[in-house]
């Protein structure tokens, strides 16, 4: 049985910030999120503001930057690129502002396929700079089903793309694993209401532990719910630490996360 204090070093690569219209989120501000991180051993969280994904990418991205300014050692920001809201402008902003460390896209919410031309600038930017891209992925979605990312990887082999939720459902996870097995540029992230430790083990078994990333989706889903699946997943301790933070340090090399200089700072993975 674990104790009341966290035992792992954690980097959370999938988080949000602020209120959401569809449901009430208690304490969705950055300070409350950092307080949760203190309890869970989370060194850094990479987030995109809910306003950015839900309604206004530009204003929401500004909220994300404000959170970084308030907690520069603990929070890093994705720039949300909405294909309908002047993506070139936000990409230019991303390029110029080093507080952004990656790109977040949400094809399902924005009702535009991840393979569509309006996303081309995102993949080109990612490929030319090394900027990682976190995308929502959802089994059977016409916008971001895991298999669709194979097209992205085929066309832009130099872009590092994280399949957020790894397809969400158990069948979606299988599809995500299949896609990531074919393309080394695809990474899997483990948050989602249907995720389990055995599914995470399945990812690690088939991909190695080097491309599986911890994300929680907090403050949608409480970070501890997502963390519990990894903490108790049937993994070796080395694999678990890769998932919880080591791999994130590897992925975010374009603009290193707070707490490191950019060199690889973790042990070798089991990959």
């Amino acid at each position: 049985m674990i104790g009341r204090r966290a035992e792992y070093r954690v980097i959370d690569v999938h988080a949000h910030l602020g209120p959401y219209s569809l449901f009430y989120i208690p304490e969705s501000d950055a300070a409350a999120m950092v307080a949760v991180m203190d309890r869970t051993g989370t060194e850094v969280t990479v987030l995109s503001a809910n306003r950015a994904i839900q309604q206004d990418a530009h204003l929401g991205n500004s909220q994300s930057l404000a959170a970084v300014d308030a907690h520069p050692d603990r929070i890093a920001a994705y720039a949300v690129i909405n294909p309908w809201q002047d993506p070139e402008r936000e990409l230019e902003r991303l390029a110029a502002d080093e507080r952004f460390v990656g790109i977040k896209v949400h094809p399902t919410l924005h009702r535009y396929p991840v393979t569509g031309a309006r996303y081309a600038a995102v993949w080109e930017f990612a490929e030319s700079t090394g900027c990682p891209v976190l995308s929502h992925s959802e089994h059977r979605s016409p916008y971001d089903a895991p298999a669709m990312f194979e097209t992205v990887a085929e066309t832009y082999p130099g872009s590092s793309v994280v399949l957020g939720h790894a397809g969400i459902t158990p069948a979606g996870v299988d599809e995500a694993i299949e896609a990531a097995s074919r393309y080394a540029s695809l990474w899997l992230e483990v948050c989602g209401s249907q995720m389990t430790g055995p599914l995470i083990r399945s990812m690690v078994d088939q991909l190695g532990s080097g491309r599986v990333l911890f994300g929680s989706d907090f403050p949608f889903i409480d970070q501890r719910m997502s963390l519990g699946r990894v903490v108790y997943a049937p993994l070796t301790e080395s694999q678990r630490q890769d998932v919880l933070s080591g791999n994130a340090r590897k992925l975010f090399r374009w603009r290193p996360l707070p707490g490191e200089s950019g060199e690889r700072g973790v042990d070798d993975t089991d990959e």
Partner: protein
Amino acid sequence: MTDSASSVRPSTSSTRSTSSTSSTTSTTSTTSAEDVMAGWFDARIVTGAHPASLLPPTDRDAIAAHLDRYALSGALVSAMASWLHHPIGGNAEASAVAHSLADRGVLACWTAIPATAGELESLTALVDRALDQGVAAFRIHPLSHGFSPGLLNELYAALETNRLPLCIDAAEISWADLSTIATRHPELPIVVSNVGYRKLRELWAALDGHANVFVDLVDFAAHQGVEWLAANNLADRLLFATGLGLRDPGEGVVRLAWSGLDDATVQLVGSGNASRLFGSGNASRPSGSENADRTSGSENADRTSGVRRADGGRS
């Protein structure tokens, strides 16, 4: 585990405070960290195979291992077969596990459906039979089993009379129907499970409006939802549960262990509230037919008074 019903402080609508959350774990308890983390009661386990999930096994031995792994004092077990195959017939599987692990504090939760010719003769008789077998609670699945919750009024009355809690998944019933049952049966404890992270507005109305509504930790996934309840003096309505068989048990364990609750409140959620509702906490209780003794005499009276004490101040 040192927590007990006697340490539970009743909550009242008029005296909600923010005293239950603390970043410094301030508590009046003198228990050690190990004590705080041991002896939780898992208020929801489902035994039997799930047809569409990749989850740990949940047979008798797996449940025993689950109790060991998380240092649990016991659990409330219902049957997957009752949910997904044979509602009444599956109850025997829940009772078999409970009887086999009675010395580990495992209790059975039976499933009910409306009395229907050829399927179930009488809900009152079903409850009587459950009491004879030491069943600690009932569960209903109106959506999955295709009936209106109003068809179980006889069940609610029988459960209320005997202070047996009614358990139900949020997805199985409308919040309006839940409110109707809670209103008509104010002494019937109702435990809502699988609330997810999108239903706090509805949950708040249910908890605020009905002192007999509780919620368990199975997929209670709202960010800071646990702390939000405690800050609103509703920690005595929250029960630790993993949902083993339906969910990854690590979710609930880590959620409570690394919560912002002080140690005393962790114990309350971990086991104290379940002790009041289910009469849990007597791991040495005899199994089999001897369990029938629970339904009369002092133990039943303790459970009844525990529920009444917790609810009384808020009614």
